[in-house]
């Protein structure tokens, strides 16, 4: 009986070291398993359907990765800050339509700049609603999604704006070897996002705000200003995705990116960024975007009806968040309030 107490203690200690060791291993695996999943999915589908390995298809996957990934770079900043933006589809549509409309009159660079600025302005609208009017982010941006879509519909009158400039198309759909320009842009943007998130005081404020907003406020951080800025940055990222999408489709219309917010959020969450805020992984986000690109192209190649993509994306999103919630048994996120 006398020995039980020390045994319990050592056992507890052992258990503690074991759990910390397992959790380290788990976190390592959880960081790398996604890449493994992507590779395995890619290889398996390729074995079933050899044309999956073709250069054209690989390029398609990279294009798709780039569109979702570029938008997801903005989203990962928002989610790290404990925010969310559902108006992605609206911002993409408006900025793509802007590019299509101004291209005949200006240079390509200016057109892209205009689109990105418009994206930042739309982001600012979201940011002001969330920071100063104090509306919960997901509901405010759900409202602005329809506002922006409405703007896009009214601007085009419901028509398709065609992008005729061949130089613009070459710039947005060209490729360096097998790597398309949008994908290279994604890599640069991801590096910038990583730098912004983990090496600047802005990123630090963002992470502090995401893990505990009240504490960040009391520590004298400019929470409202940071929120407004991060929504602007995210809006600019969405707009950039819209620019490349307009080039790829060689047209722009209000419906061009309906429902993309789910893929973007799913890419971020599947990549390992917690919806509770406070930390974000840019690398994981890019891999998450790639996973969905591989999945959607695989479904295409295997001849599955496109409707299944809704179901697959939604199911992967739920599973990813559920696994995250299981890992941390802490209180759940509250979207409202």
């Amino acid at each position, binding site marked *: 009986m006398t020995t039980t107490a020390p045994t319990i203690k050592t056992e507890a200690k052992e258990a503690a070291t074991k759990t910390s060791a397992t959790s380290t291993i788990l976190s390592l695996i959880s960081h790398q398993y996604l890449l493994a999943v992507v590779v395995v999915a890619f290889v398996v589908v390729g074995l079933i359907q050899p044309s999956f390995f073709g250069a054209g298809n690989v390029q398609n996957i990279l294009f798709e990765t780039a569109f979702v990934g570029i938008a997801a770079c903005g989203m990962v900043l928002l989610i790290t800050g404990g925010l*969310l933006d*559902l108006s992605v589809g609206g911002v993409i549509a408006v900025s793509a339509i802007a590019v299509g409309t101004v291209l005949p009159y200006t240079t390509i660079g200016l057109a892209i700049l205009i689109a990105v600025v418009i994206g930042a302005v739309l982001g600012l609208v979201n940011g002001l*609603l969330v920071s100063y*009017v*104090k*509306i*919960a982010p*997901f*509901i*405010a941006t*759900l*409202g*602005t*999604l*329809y*506002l922006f*879509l*409405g*703007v896009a*519909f*009214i601007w085009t*009158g*419901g028509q398709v704006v065609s992008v005729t400039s061949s130089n613009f198309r070459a710039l947005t759909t060209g490729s360096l070897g097998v790597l398309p320009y949008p994908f290279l842009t994604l890599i640069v943007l991801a590096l910038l996002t990583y730098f912004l998130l983990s090496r600047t005081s802005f990123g630090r404020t963002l992470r502090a705000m995401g893990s505990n907003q009240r504490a960040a406020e009391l520590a004298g951080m400019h929470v409202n200003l940071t929120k407004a800025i991060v929504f602007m940055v995210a809006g600019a990222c969405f707009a950039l995705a819209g620019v490349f999408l307009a080039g790829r489709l060689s047209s722009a219309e*209000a419906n061009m990116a309906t*429902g993309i*917010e*789910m893929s973007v*959020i*799913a890419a971020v*969450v599947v990549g390992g960024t917690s*919806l509770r805020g406070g930390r974000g992984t840019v690398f994981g986000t890019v891999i998450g975007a790639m996973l969905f690109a591989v999945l959607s192209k695989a479904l295409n190649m295997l001849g599955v*009806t496109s*409707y*299944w*993509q*809704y*179901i697959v*994306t*939604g*199911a992967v*999103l*739920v599973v990813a*968040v*559920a696994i995250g*919630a*299981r890992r941390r048994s802490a*209180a*759940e*996120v*509250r*979207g*409202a*309030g």
Partner: protein
Amino acid sequence: MVNAPQLLQVDVVTSAEQERRESARRGDRAARRQSILQKLGIIIPFVLVLLAGIVLVPSFLSASNITNMLVDGAILAITAYGMTMVIALRGIDLSVGSTQAVVACVAAVSVNAWGILPGILAGIAAAIILGLVNGLIVTTFRVPAFIATLATLGIFRGIALLFTGGAPIMITDSAFRSIATSSIFGIPVPFIVAVLVGAGFWFVLDRMRFGKHVVAVGGSPESATDSGIKVKRIELIAYVVAAAAAGVAGLLLASQLGSVNGSLSSGLELQAIAVVVLGGTSMAGGRGNIIGTFLASLLLAMINAGLNLLNVPSFYQYIALGMLLVFALSLDSAQRAAVRRVFEGRVA
């Protein structure tokens, strides 16, 4: 000298009493301001839109337009009642539109195959299953409600599209089709259904223990858990009820349209949330206002009908809806800020 401690005690007692009276007064003031803002939030826009409609819109008061508005408002209201319950619980259900599409499609096929009653039952059963899926994902797998239902919004939409193969389904049963178009004593049946269902929801939320529990969970899930309320069970039931309400509305919609397809009711979540918040239910949870939801649904139906009659392109309805939602939400947050100011008056 002897009196000094007694004096002190008396002082403490009076100051405590003063404190209590003061805080009660603050509480009253907060409640008063809240209820004023809440009522103004719905009644002023309602009256303004009604007047604007009567003055500016030709044939706004024609019998057919009134019937139209009542039916549209009723169908929206039934969906929004369920949303009111979920939002009072501090949750959200973004999947109502997709749920409604699945229910309408299942009901349409079942009505065509087996007749009217089995069709309705099949539709309701489908709604309950989808609600269970939402509820289980939120409670058992602890996925935040807005992300869980965002995912099921996609999943259910995919199911609806797969089920129909992207083609519209005509409903051949004329008895089913006449449900939404017939009226009793000149009042359209959907409106009567909406009033009855609303009365049911009001009774449950305001007068029954379950409703008190819903509001308690929405006010503070932690305290609700501590006081022994089975939070997860309440949440699960609320999501099932919300889906069932969306399903009933879907049946009426299918009956009204006579033909359904997989992309039915997309974007419905925004309308439902907008009318719930406009009706005075706070996004912060802890308060549900069924009557406000009902009035706000009629308001939105009036706006849509008015814009239609004025031949405004339908895109502008998006803008109107988005602005309405942002307006309602700003009012909600202003209301909360007002209450906070009253309570924290001295500190700030």
